[in-house]
Structure formats: structure tokens, C-alpha cells
């Protein structure tokens, strides 16, 4: 039908499973940070709004984290099952970095997650806060290692190749490879911004329905401060990341820009829109702005950017896709910045929580961060093609020797299972969001005190508004 080869199916499977996966750790990273801030603010100010928000978001965090764990487990095995030649070749480096991720991050997250989610009444406040911070730290460390590994595949250094296998010679050079600092900053910031828009969207949903209370307002306010301050910072980081890519992977930039050839000494224009055609080697229907390409990419008005035609056809990434995925990412980024600016204007006028047009925008911007993250990853990963380790190993030489039948069966299985399970999971997350924060969740039990041995998870009958058991227990029954 489509005449797909086993390699295409393996690539589709990897793209599919990792695209689903990345959504969860991105939210995990953002929410873990948010939860640590909320708990810290509660401990500092004793304003119970923060504690209520902590409990509200920790339930959503729990569902999201579970999905991240199980979809991540698949990733840890997929390198070997589907990409055995890559694993054998690059395992001494990428496998080592992945193991460091497990040792320093995954165990830290998992070890403290139980106490963070279920230990509110079992340990003292300080220890609970410490657990939240450890989980949050774990998510950051995890980001560090996995992006070191990915960046090394983009801009490899610090190795030599002996008998067809990578031998690391300088680990600092491997980890702190040229694209790593930019990619790490860009992704970590993206996760925080994406989560902020998710949180802001939840608040807007409630405000639009007339559910206005201090907790909801705090959510919107914190989210919009993030949008105002961090979204522009992200644009600057993205700009540096782009310059770095131009230096190390010029073919990727040429494909992103749909830029096929340089004429004489003419500065590179910026193609706003168009349809890059890989066969015809040109970008159709291009709307160009002269000089702007040179200005953005070289920060000058005369320097040229390398063009796609200067690379052999078999070394060119697919411009049709990444021209657009990049524009989706950048466009959403611009919208986020505008949302932040508008929020500041409304905040000054005192109508942040009541301007319906703005609240609708905030609502619809909810998934914008996650879509931008996916679009950004599509850009950088498809832009790395045809290489799996840039300049060293082609993707076509990296796969295992599975048959088309096997690959089709497993791909179909993953598609069915992921769509059915994870859409239900996202549904549960949305349902929790719609419940909204409750007041006085996790208030002190009548006995025990900070740092004291408490009676194990006694029902918080005094504190709970409906007299049922511990917080999420009572929630389950309501849902």
C-alpha cells in the first residue's frame, strides 16, 4: 500500500513513542518545579491558598507522572530492540549517559515521589518539602543527562572510533558538547513555559465559568508572570540555539529556512511562508523579506547563510517538514510573548481576572507550549537526518534487522495502546482540572505535629469538607 520499509516503520515507531512520551516529562518537569514553589511559598507565608493549590496540582502531577514512567520505560528498551546497530556502535557513550540518568535522576524521583504524593501526614513539613524538592531536582537532572545524550548525537565530540565502536576519550567534551548548553536551556525553559500555559489555561477555564476564588486567581497570576518574563527569555535562548545550529549543522538551518541557493553576494532573505519542494530543489510560493535571514541568523546585513544545494542530495534533511514545524514553534512562541504582554496591560488596569477575550485566549493557549515543544523536537530531530549520530552514522545503518511484518505489528500495537490509554489519562487529568482546587485540603490533623510521628494516614475528618477520608480518596469518590 504505502510500500514502507522496515526502516521507515522503525523510524515511525520511534517518532510516535517518543512524541507521546516527551509530553509527560515536559509537564512533569514544569509541574514539579511549580509544586516545589507552591509548597515553599506555603511554608514561608502560611497562606493556605498555596497549600490548596499544592494538593490540587499534585493529583494532576501524579497521573501525568505515571504515564511518563511507563512510556519512558519503552524508550529505555527501544534503542536495543529497534536500533541495535546504533546501540552497539554508540552504546559506550549514549548508554553510559542514560545509565547516569537512571542512577542520578530516575531513582531520586521515584524514591521521593511516594512520600511527596502519599506522605503528607506521615512525615513532618520540612521532610515533605524536602521530598518535593528532591523530585523536582530529579526531573532537572534527568533533563540534563538525556539532553547531553541527544546533543551529543547532534554535535558529537570527545571520542574516537575503534573497530566500529565509539570509544569515549574525554567525558567532559562528550557531555558538554557544543549544542548541549543551548538545547538544555531551551528545553528546560520550554517545559516551564508550557506548564505555565497549561496552569493558566486551567485558571481561565474556571474564571470563564464564574468560579472566582483566590486560588484560581493565584494560578492565573503566577502563570502570566511566567509568560511575561520567561517566554521572551525563551526567544532569546532560541536565537542563540539557532546560531549554534548554524555553526554546527548548517544543512539543518538551510532546510528550516527553505533556503536553496545563494546568488552572488546577495544577503540571505527570510522566507516567511512557502512550500519547500525536495524534488524540484526550490521553495514554491515563497514570501520573502530581503536581508532578514542574514540579520536573524548572522546578526549582520551582508553575511550569507549556507544553502541546501551546497549539500549533496543524500545529505539533506527534509525541508518540507521542518520549514513548517519550525514556523509552528516560533509562531506559538510569539503568541506566548503577546499573551504575557497583554496580561501585564490588563493587570495594570485591574481586569486580568475578568476580561473575557483575554481569558479565552489564555484558555486556548493551554496546549500551546506542548505543541511548540513537539514542533521544536520535530525540527531538530528531522533536521539531524539523514544522520543518527551527526556525520558519523546514518539512520539507515542504525536499525535492527526486523521484518516489515514484525515492525508493523508492534507499531500498530503501540498506536492502539498509546492512543487509548494516554487519551484516557489526559481525560482524567482534565477532569481533575475541572474539579478545581478545594479549600483546606491537607490541613493539619487534630493530633500530631510537625516532625512528630503521626498516626499513619488517619482520615482527616475534621479538615475534609465532606467528612470523607484522606484528600485524594475523597476526591475519587466524588468523581
Amino acid at each position: 500500500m504505502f510500500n514502507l520499509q522496515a526502516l521507515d516503520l522503525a523510524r515511525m515507531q520511534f517518532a510516535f513513542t517518543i512524541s507521546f512520551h516527551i509530553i509527560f516529562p515536559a509537564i512533569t518537569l514544569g509541574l514539579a518545579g511549580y509544586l516545589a514553589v507552591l509548597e515553599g511559598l506555603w511554608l514561608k507565608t502560611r497562606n493556605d491558598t498555596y497549600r490548596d493549590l499544592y494538593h490540587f496540582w499534585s493529583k494532576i502531577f501524579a497521573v501525568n507522572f505515571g504515564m511518563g514512567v511507563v512510556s519512558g520505560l519503552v524508550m529505555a528498551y527501544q534503542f536495543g530492540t529497534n536500533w541495535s546497530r546504533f546501540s552497539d556502535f554508540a552504546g559506550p557513550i549514549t548508554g553510559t549517559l542514560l545509565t547516569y540518568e537512571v542512577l542520578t535522576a530516575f531513582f531520586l524521583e521515584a524514591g521521593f515521589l511516594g512520600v511527596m504524593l502519599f506522605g503528607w501526614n506521615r512525615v513532618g513539613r520540612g521532610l515533605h518539602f524536602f521530598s518535593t524538592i528532591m523530585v523536582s531536582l530529579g526531573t532537572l537532572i534527568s533533563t540534563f543527562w538525556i539532553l547531553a545524550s541527544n546533543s551529543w548525537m547532534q554535535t558529537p565530540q570527545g571520542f574516537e572510533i575503534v573497530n566500529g565502536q565509539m570509544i569515549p576519550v574525554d567525558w567532559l567534551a562528550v557531555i558538554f558538547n557544543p549544542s548541549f548548553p543551548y538545547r538544555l536551556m531551551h528545553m528546560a525553559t520550554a517545559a516551564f513555559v508550557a506548564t505555565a500555559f497549561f496552569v493558566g489555561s486551567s485558571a481561565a477555564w474556571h474564571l470563564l465559568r464564574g468560579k472566582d476564588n483566590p486560588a484560581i486567581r493565584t494560578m492565573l497570576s503566577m502563570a502570566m508572570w511566567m509568560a511575561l518574563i520567561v517566554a521572551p527569555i525563551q526567544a532569546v535562548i532560541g536565537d542563540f540555539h539557532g546560531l549554534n545550529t548554524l555553526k554546527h549543522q548548517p544543512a539543518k538551518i538551510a532546510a528550516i529556512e527553505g533556503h536553496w541557493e545563494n546568488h552572488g553576494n546577495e544577503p540571505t532573505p527570510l522566507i516567511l511562508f512557502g512550500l519547500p519542494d525536495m524534488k524540484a530543489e526550490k521553495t514554491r510560493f515563497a514570501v520573502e523579506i530581503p536581508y532578514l535571514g542574514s540579520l536573524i541568523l548572522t546578526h549582520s546585513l551582508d553575511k550569507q547563510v549556507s544553502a541546501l544545494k551546497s549539500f549533496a542530495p543524500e545529505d539533506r534533511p527534509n525541508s518540507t517538514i521542518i520549514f513548517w514545524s519550525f514556523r509552528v514553534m516560533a509562531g506559538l512562541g510569539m503568541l506566548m510573548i503577546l499573551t504575557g504582554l497583554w496580561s501585564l496591560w490588563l493587570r495594570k488596569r485591574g481586569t486580568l481576572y475578568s476580561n473575557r477575550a483575554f481569558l479565552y485566549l489564555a484558555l486556548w493557549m493551554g496546549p500551546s507550549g506542548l505543541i511548540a515543544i513537539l514542533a521544536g523536537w520535530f525540527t531538530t530531530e528531522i533536521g539531524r537526518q539523514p544522520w543518527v549520530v551527526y556525520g558519523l552514522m546514518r539512520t539507515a545503518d542504525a536499525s535492527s534487522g526486523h521484518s516489515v511484518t514484525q515492525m508493523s505489528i508492534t507499531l500498530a500495537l503501540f498506536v492502539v495502546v498509546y492512543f487509548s490509554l494516554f487519551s484516557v489519562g489526559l481525560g482524567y487529568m482534565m477532569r481533575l482540572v475541572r474539579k478545581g482546587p478545594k479549600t483546606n485540603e491537607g490541613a493539619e490533623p487534630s493530633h500530631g505535629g510537625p516532625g512528630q510521628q503521626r498516626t499513619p494516614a488517619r482520615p482527616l475528618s475534621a479538615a475534609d469538607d465532606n467528612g470523607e477520608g484522606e484528600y485524594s480518596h475523597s476526591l475519587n469518590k466524588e468523581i
Partner: protein
Amino acid sequence: MGIDLPLIWAVIIIFGIMMYVVMDGFDLGIGILFPFIKGKSDRDVMMNTVAPVWDGNETWLVLGGAALFGAFPLAYSVVLSALYLPLILMLIGLIFRGVAFEFRFKAKDAKRHIWDKAFIGGSLVATFFQGVALGAFIDGIQVVNRQYAGGGLDWLTPFSLFCGVALIVAYALLGCTWLIMKTEGKLQEQMHNLARPLALVLLAVIGIVSIWTPMTHPEIAARWFTLPNLFWFLPVPLLVLVTLYGLIRAVARNAHYTPFLLTLVLIFLGYSGLGISLWPNIVPPSISIWDAASPPQSQGFLLVGALFIIPFILGYTFWSYYVFRGKVTHEDGYH
């Protein structure tokens, strides 16, 4: 040469997989035992005994995969490709049961049964295919030019399927004795009644695997049944018998902790038996840990971190179990 890095890494990975088998074993076992317990409230308790720790338990499986990738990339790439379908099915089983932990408590009453089934089915499928993968691994993997050279269904043999069933029994016993330790009242009594029959079935499957393996693998038979090896290894089967006897006695006198601890011993012995059969091959029948090792630059770099970090991991893992120690009751709403 000084330090035998591949040897140390083999020990670390063996330790990691052992931790996984023990820890995820009892929590998979709880899923396997779910069908025996009908009440929602009892099922809540069963799940709550592992809700705070299951994620940490599963992390040992990720460590097993990742450490193999880093320290023995050849083994990682060959074994995982050879066991492609059983491993993918195992992962999908783990996905179903993993999401069930959260989803089950978030679902409406009318929908909860779906997640109960996902938990049961996922646990069974994951365990079964883990066992199948193990059986196929023992059977050996054909390698040419550092790549898997067998067919897509080579793993499918009567022996590997039997290993799948055997692992279900082993994990069920782990889950059962874990629940004896962590619960009370009627649920504990039900587990109590299950423990003896499960232990006897486990004895039977251990016996069958122990006979079947050397019968079909002459090199493994030679390992066990030549002198003086026989005397060195004889304690393993003898200790299995003694432990099982102790386990059944402990169940009979209504002990709460001993059955679980003795089951751990049993699993450890079975695992040692496997190690004796295969050592030092990391891809049976012929690739040793030294053949498959990544360069010392990788193993050494990794070892520095591992030796420093693993004690911390064990420390806070133990702490987390300590925080959630004691019996889990119907009033405990972790969820």
C-alpha cells in the same frame, strides 16, 4: 591488568536485576492475585500496599536496561533485538498495569472494573513475557557479526513458554507473602490460605525447570553434574527444599513476616541457580561478559558514579519503605 571492570559491571547488573525481580516481583504478584479477591475495598488495600513504591521498583528495570546499554552495548543490542516481541509485549503489559495505579482511583465506580482488568491483564502479560524472555535467553541467541542472526519467532519454544508460566507462579507467591506481611483481617487470611498451594506449585515448576534446562542444554548439564562442581552447587537445590519447608511451616504458624522473607530467599536461590548455569556468558551460549563489554573508558567512568550513587539510592529507597511501614488498612487512603 588491575580491576576487572566487566566483572564488576556484571555483578552490578546482576544485583540490579535481582532487585528488580524481588521488588517488582511482589508488586506484579499483587496484580496476578487480584482475580482471587473480589471486593473493591480489599483491592484498594492491595494496591495501596505498593502505590507509594511501585515506581521505584520499576526503576530497577530501567537501570537493568540502561546499564546493559552502557556497560555491555553488544549484549544490549543483540539480546533486545532477539527478544523483540516478548519484550515489547512485556512493556505493553507494564504500561497497562502502571497506568492502572492512578487511573483506577480516578475512575468512576462504573468504569473501575476496566482498570482492575488492565491491572490484572497487564501484570499477567508483563510477568509471562518476562519469563518467556528469560527462557529464550537461556535457550541461547544466534549472533553473526555482532548482530542477531536468528528469526523473529525463535524465542517461541515450549521451554520459554513454560518459563513464562513459572515466573507467574513465582511472582504470585511473592505478592501473596508480601500481602500477608502488609495486611490484616480477612484479606490476610485469604492470602494465608493461598500461600501453601502456591508454594507447592512453585516447588513443582522449579523442579521442572531444573530438570528441563540441563536436559536440553548439555553445556549447562556439564556445568552442574560434573565433579567437583556438583558438590559446590548441591547446596542450591538443597537450600531450596529447606527454604520451602520453612516457608510452609511459617505459613502454618501464622507468621506475618517470615513467609515473605523466605520467599525472597527462594527467589534468590533460583536466581543463583540461573547464574551458575549461564556464567560468564551475557549472551548465551557463547558471548561472555568480556566479549560484550564496552571500553574501559565507559565502564570506568560509569563505575565511579555507580559506586558513589547506589548506596544513596538504597538509602532513600529503604527510607521510603520505612515511611510507609506497617499494615495497610481500609482506612488508609493513600489514594
